[in-house]
């Protein structure tokens, strides 16, 4: 099963087995990674599953669609490597995909 690596802002790292076909967001929720809230339940509607994809992986992901771009426009602290993790589907080729979780101030 592919392993997805989630790194929280303080460096806490989770190496999580995520089944093929799940989204990167679902993998995070299952493992209680802090900072991935997914308020809309994975419907590309809220921006709270926002992650920064590690530079060496950005080219290997299918590009996000217009809906994702529109939500990212309404999201804070967006960088060129930003993606909504609910829109990234896990495949065997993404074994080792590394994403960083933005700081969420509570």
């Amino acid at each position, binding site marked *: 099963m592919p392993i997805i690596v989630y790194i929280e802002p303080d460096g806490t790292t989770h190496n999580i087995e995520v089944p093929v076909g799940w989204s990167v967001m679902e993998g995070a929720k299952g493992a209680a990674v802090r900072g991935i809230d997914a308020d809309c339940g994975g419907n590309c*509607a809220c921006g709270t599953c926002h992650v920064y994809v590690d530079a060496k992986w950005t080219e290997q992901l299918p590009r996000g669609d217009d809906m994702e771009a529109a939500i990212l426009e309404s999201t*804070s602290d967006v960088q060129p490597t930003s993606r909504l993790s609910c829109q990234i589907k896990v495949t065997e080729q993404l074994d080792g995909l590394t994403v960083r979780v*933005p*700081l969420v*101030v*509570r």
Partner: protein
Amino acid sequence: MNNDRQSDPQSGAIRIEDLPIEQIDVSQHRLFETAEVLPVFARLRREAPVHYCPKSQFGPYWSITRHEDIMRVDTDPVTFSSAIQNGGVSIDDRLMRATKGDFRFEGFIAKDPPAHGRYRKAVQPIVSAESLQNLRSLIQERTDRILDELPVGEQFDWVERVSVKLTTMMMATLFDVPLADAPKLAYWSDITGAIEGADGFVSYEHRTEQLMKCLDYFSALFKERAAAPPKFDLISMLAHDPDTCNLQPMDFLGQVLLLIVGSNDTTRNSMSASINCLNLFPDEFRKMWADPGLIDAMVKEVVRWQTPIAHQRRTAVKDVVMRDQTIRAGDKVVMWYYSGNRDETVFPNPDRVRFDRANINHHLSFGFGIHRCMGMRVAELQLRILWQAILERFEAIELVAAPKRIRSISRNGYKEMMVRVTPRSARTRQ
């Protein structure tokens, strides 16, 4: 949780929930004042989830009452427009449409893409992680001071002494205006938000006159901030962003009013609501004193239960079929967030505040889609800090009378909440 059912004063003994479904008009302010609207929403969700009301004080409109359908409308800005040119985001169009010389609201909440994104991005940095970290100690200091000044053993109005005080100070900070001017901002916010027939509405002429003063005030501030280096407040951000530094006066005023309204009574009403919920659900809230880690869940649940913004409106730009109903191009479509937040198929036992809901984040109070509330993290931060401070100081905050609610189909809130606080005794402190 319903209040006593009352007979409908307009049709004698027939209550609105007993009317034939096609005669139901939920857009009546009195129904929201006492929460009588909730069983009516329940009926609409069951029997007519996409419901056409042909005649109301606001004209004909569609009611969308189920959580999933509200999400569908909210996340399709192409079909369902927010633009002021089409009527804007309130069921009350007259609030939005200008007649010659009148105020017309042009805040970016009432713009569609691509303009919407350009405006929002100019001010979004105020809610960046860095900005929130900077704000946190200020919020903490003010909250501590306000709570330490509360009288013990005598009644006072929580709305005035806590909710209004804390949120008007927050507004003053976000705009970087003197604290003494904050009540002016609150006043302008209240008259912008009030619609005809609701509490706070005076007249369209009065509103225009007062909001022109608001424009003068902020135009002067804008000039100052434009001439100075950029800094971290909303006016400076508008002044230095290339997309917002040259706006027409009504457009500029609209952005200012949106930001004032957004930071004002919604959070105020959530703060008051948390005390109402404390008294309605004491067993649940007692858990927080034992486990302050539950504060996060409490904040989400109170915001769901209260639903400070009861509805948002859209206009269909083309014909669209939803649940076998054909909504025509030009039709007014009202998303009743208040109903979607009590959708029993999404939130079992929806009228109860429960900290253990698995889908506690899934509420509609901040909206979804591109217009989702920009200030939600600031709102939640203020509520969280308020309750950390309450738990440290008080073991009880009791209502001494029923709270007075605002009469409005757009704002679920409180005008007065008389309470008495009991400090934590030495033996209950950690």
